[in-house]
């Protein structure tokens, strides 16, 4: 595969949070059109990876590279990354009182497109996206994430993704805290977005969302590194055997090294 074929390429990435090294030499490439899942136990560095990719100021990239469509982005601000086509569906979306969803979505769309979107077109696309995610139209008039239930927040993230049409979406535990119906709806939303141009990195603790969104590749993250990669069957294997299956052997290797 060529360099240009990867929407997202991560090379030997090291990330520290508050001086503590969390991601330790992670490399990964997501080609256009593919969905990759990253699975890992708690504390393996999943959310750190997600936040570092988007450029959260508290997550310091101490070494390595992040390429988006071939361009190094690790020195860019989050908004610059977003305008270049990166999207992060957050695990814990924050609320912004007084800012309505509809105003926020228009501002975001304007920012990533670099120009205003005609009202009629915007309204139509918003209605389609709301329908896709089985969200009531009144949703658009509510304040951004304010008083949203856990499930509503996750849907709202996928709604934004649907409207902004990023070339690379990183989804940080979008499945956590969802009941089975909400999970199915969110998965349908993701599937509707999949396409030959777009890469998706699905970060998850559990295998169950992968029953609905079939990944092209599955990677296991442990102690800030990819320790195993495979096809979709790897997820089922993990589900059956648990993370210990991989991590215990790694931990014993580590102690032998020491």
């Amino acid at each position, binding site marked *: 595969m060529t360099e240009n074929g990867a929407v997202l390429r991560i090379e030997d990435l090291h990330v520290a949070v508050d001086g503590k090294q969390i991601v330790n030499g992670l490399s990964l490439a997501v080609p256009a059109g593919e969905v990759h899942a990253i699975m890992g136990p708690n504390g393996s560095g999943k959310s750190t990876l997600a936040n570092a990719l988007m450029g959260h*100021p508290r997550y310091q990239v101490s070494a390595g590279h992040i390429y988006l469509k071939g361009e190094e982005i690790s020195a860019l601000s989050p908004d610059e990354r*977003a305008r270049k086509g990166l999207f992060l569906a957050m695990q814990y979306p*924050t609320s*912004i009182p007084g800012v309505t969803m509809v105003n*926020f979505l228009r*501002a975001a769309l304007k920012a990533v497109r670099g120009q205003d979107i005609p009202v009629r077109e915007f309204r139509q696309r918003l209605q389609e996206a709301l329908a896709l995610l089985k969200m009531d139209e009144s949703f658009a008039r509510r304040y951004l994430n304010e008083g949203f239930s856990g499930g509503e927040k996750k849907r709202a993230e996928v709604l934004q993704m649907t409207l902004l049409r990023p070339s690379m979406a990183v989804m940080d535990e979008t499945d956590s805290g969802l009941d089975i119906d909400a999970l199915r709806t969110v998965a349908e939303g993701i599937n509707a977005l999949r396409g030959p141009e777009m890469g998706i990195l699905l970060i998850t603790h559990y295998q169950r969302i992968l029953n609905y969104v079939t990944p092209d590749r599955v990677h296991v993250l442990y102690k800030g590194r990819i320790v195993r990669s495979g096809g979709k069957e790897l997820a089922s294997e993990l589900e059956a055997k648990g993370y210990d299956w991989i991590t215990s052997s790694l931990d014993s290797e580590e102690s032998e090294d020491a």
Partner: protein
Amino acid sequence: MTTTRNARDIVSGYKYGWHDPEFKPINEVRKGLDRDVVAQISALKNEPQWMRDFRLRALEIFESKPMPTGFWGGNIGNYPLDFQDIYYYVKPVEKQGRTWEEVPQEIKRTFDRLGIPEAERKFLAGVGAQYDSEVVYHKIREDLDKLGVVFVDMDTGLREHEDIVRQHFGSIVPPADNKFAALNSAVWSGGSFVYVPEGVHVDIPLQAYFRINTENMGQFERTLIIAEPGSYVHYVEGCTAPTYSSDSLHSAVVEIIVKRGARVRYTTIQNWSTNVYNLVTKRAAAYQDAVMEWVDGNLGSKLTMKYPSVFLMEPGAHGEILSLAFAGPGQHQDAGGKVVHVAPNTTSTIVSKSISKGGGRTSYRGLLKVYEGAKNAKSTVRCDALLLDPDSRSDTYPVMEIDEEQVTVGHEATVSKVGEEQLFYLQSRGIDETEATKMIVNGFVEPIVKELPMEYAIELNRLIELQMEGSVG
């Protein structure tokens, strides 16, 4: 050049800081304050003896009262405010205009630049424009005039409606209320007299605009609004001043009487330049089933001390205070509200939102008082402060005096910083940091801005935006 701009304005982003150097007052009383000055003001206005006596008595009260250093106030004593270095009366015109053409060119130009005649044509029922000590233009829509609505400057009100004025003037805010109420009572000039007859609804706002032009000027307008039973009026005031290196003083008194079943809304968009002390006493009395609403926006001034009050005098009365304050570098907005429940079954709400930036300081000062016997009084107070940087400051001083057991009272206060997480969230959607901060601030003030008529909401958002852009921390 007929007007001048000031380097400080260019740095701070204040758009109203020019002054008009061509302006020559018709008459001014010498600088400083004493019996002679007060007597001269009264004489120039040809006032009845009782008003002259009222002023002189108020002066004595002013002189006998120490500067407010106690709870009510932003420690004005710490500021170098010199009462003898101020002009108390500057008369801009011989005769008030009934049309803008009658207003002297250079003064009209000022109001043109402030957009007042245009606003009048578009969406106002009446306009009063005060320039230094006197109202230079006043007009009310003819149909309202025919319904008996009175909207004139206070001096005209005194001349043409002396009995009503004499009955109510100083009845809600007596001169002895506080030092600055006493000062205003001694040297007041201009302001509005509004009378709305029983059952009359003034469906679009009346606006008064206050402009200071002269350096070291004190502006002391006095406003009295009387809403007869079942009537409605929305009064809006705006104010700006030139930016001078020396200080000016604005000290107004506003008294409002809201009779049975009437409703008065009083909206202020205060945008004085940052060399103006803004020390104002505003109070309303609401009677049976009446509604009084203060919407108080403070963006300008060096120091503002203002706590609009509502006295709920009879059952069913409702008071509402929405206070919005924005303090930038060198500014202290000491604002809030007071509600006094005198009668049973009265309700009130206070919502305060303050923003501090670049070392600016905001304080919320609030009083909730419930008299014994005011059974079933209900009140909620909510104050939220937003700090835009670590140099800025916000304090909350709520006081509650509840002398009745059967009441429902809620109080909630929050202080928040523009959070890293909120900025990151918006930025992760492509919105740059400046725009994201603006969105967060606009969202924060939204509960107050949405209460304003559209034109004022737009104006207020624009002023907040200017203040956000001005002066980097």
